[in-house]
């Protein structure tokens, strides 16, 4: 502290003391502010520096063309790709379902006709009991028809399984829809930020309205992921237990 500074300080301190003694509150406040002004200077400088850094970061953000490209092209593109995955799986599932639906009655007819033929042959075998050779042939055919019936029933349950397996399309579709929604929200936030930092580079029509905010339980939260926490039931048995505890 040099002499001049020391003199100023002392004067300020005396003036503060004088104001306190005189009981002049307004003057006391003024003198106190004058005395502490020097100490607040570094804080203002720091805030100024930080403001400048934030400003520069925002400018760099606005000037970063990659961000612009991401918000404008890459995120919508990613959404389109996911939608395409949904439509591909839907097509595959629909085709599989159609084939299983066609195969099912074909198998049923096969079973039905085998049963009828078996009955008819049994009647013939009864009528022609004397004809050993014929009865023998009928037994052979009847054994074969038995195996047709068994295979037919196996096929029927397998076609049902093939149909049930197409359930994946609903679950994967719901999961992908949620990712698409998230991308939409991210994109809209990025566009808003870009718009704020450099209005001239962002055209008005890119400003999209906010998508649905994260849905609450009422809206539904989508299929549970395998790693889901304990507030999610793990199986149909859990559902049944929970409902039973509620008096169902």
């Amino acid at each position, binding site marked *: 502290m040099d002499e001049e500074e020391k003199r100023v300080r002392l004067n300020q301190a005396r003036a503060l003391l004088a104001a306190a003694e005189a009981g002049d509150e307004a003057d006391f406040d003024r003198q106190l502010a004058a005395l502490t002004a020097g100490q607040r200077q570094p804080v203002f400088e720091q805030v100024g520096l930080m403001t400048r850094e934030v400003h520069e970061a925002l400018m760099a953000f606005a000037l970063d063309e990659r961000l612009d490209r991401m918000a404008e092209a890459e995120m919508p593109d990613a959404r389109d790709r996911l939608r395409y995955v949904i439509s591909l799986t839907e097509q595959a599932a629909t085709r599989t379902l159609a084939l299983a639906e066609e195969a099912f009655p074909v198998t049923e007819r096969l079973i039905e006709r085998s049963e009828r033929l078996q009955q008819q042959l049994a009647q013939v075998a009864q009528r022609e009991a004397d004809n050993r050779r014929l009865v023998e042939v009928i037994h052979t055919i009847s054994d074969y028809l038995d195996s047709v019936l068994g295979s037919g029933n196996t096929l029927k349950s397998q076609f049902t399984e093939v149909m049930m397996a197409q359930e994946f399309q609903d679950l994967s579709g719901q999961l992908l829809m949620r990712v698409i929604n998230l991308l939409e929200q991210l994109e809209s936030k990025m566009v808003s930020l870009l718009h704020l930092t450099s209005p001239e580079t962002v055209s008005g029509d890119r400003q999209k309205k906010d998508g649905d905010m994260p849905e609450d339980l009422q809206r*539904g939260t989508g299929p549970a992921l395998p790693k889901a926490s304990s507030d999610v*039931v793990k199986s149909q048995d859990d559902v049944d237990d929970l*409902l039973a505890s509620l008096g169902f």
Partner: protein
Amino acid sequence: MDLNMKILVVDDFSTMRRIIKNLLKDLGFSNIEEADDGTTALPMLKHGHFDFLVTDWNMPGMTGIDLLKAVRADPALSTLPVLMVTAEAKREQIIMAAQAGVNGYIVKPFNGPTLKEKIDKIFERVQS
């Protein structure tokens, strides 16, 4: 159980509607109609004399839980048996559905025997 009863299947995914419809057919039911969300389902229920509702939860437009609440709030539909078949698996959600008056709750992925078991149970209770 009346195999001729009229059933409405509500799900936004056509794949799932088709699977449920096929399973119901396999169980012997033949009078089945479809809707893709609550908004289309509700007028059908009001005018279609349905005996049973099978609905998903998470659908655009009107959700399954809102459809269930609307059904329970309508004097003409309030006793309609409702089965939820949904991927929504949070305990709170199952409790929410139970409180809203659901008759059965199946979590996807599911299978044919589970569907049969729940339907049998629902109609046992309804008849008794």
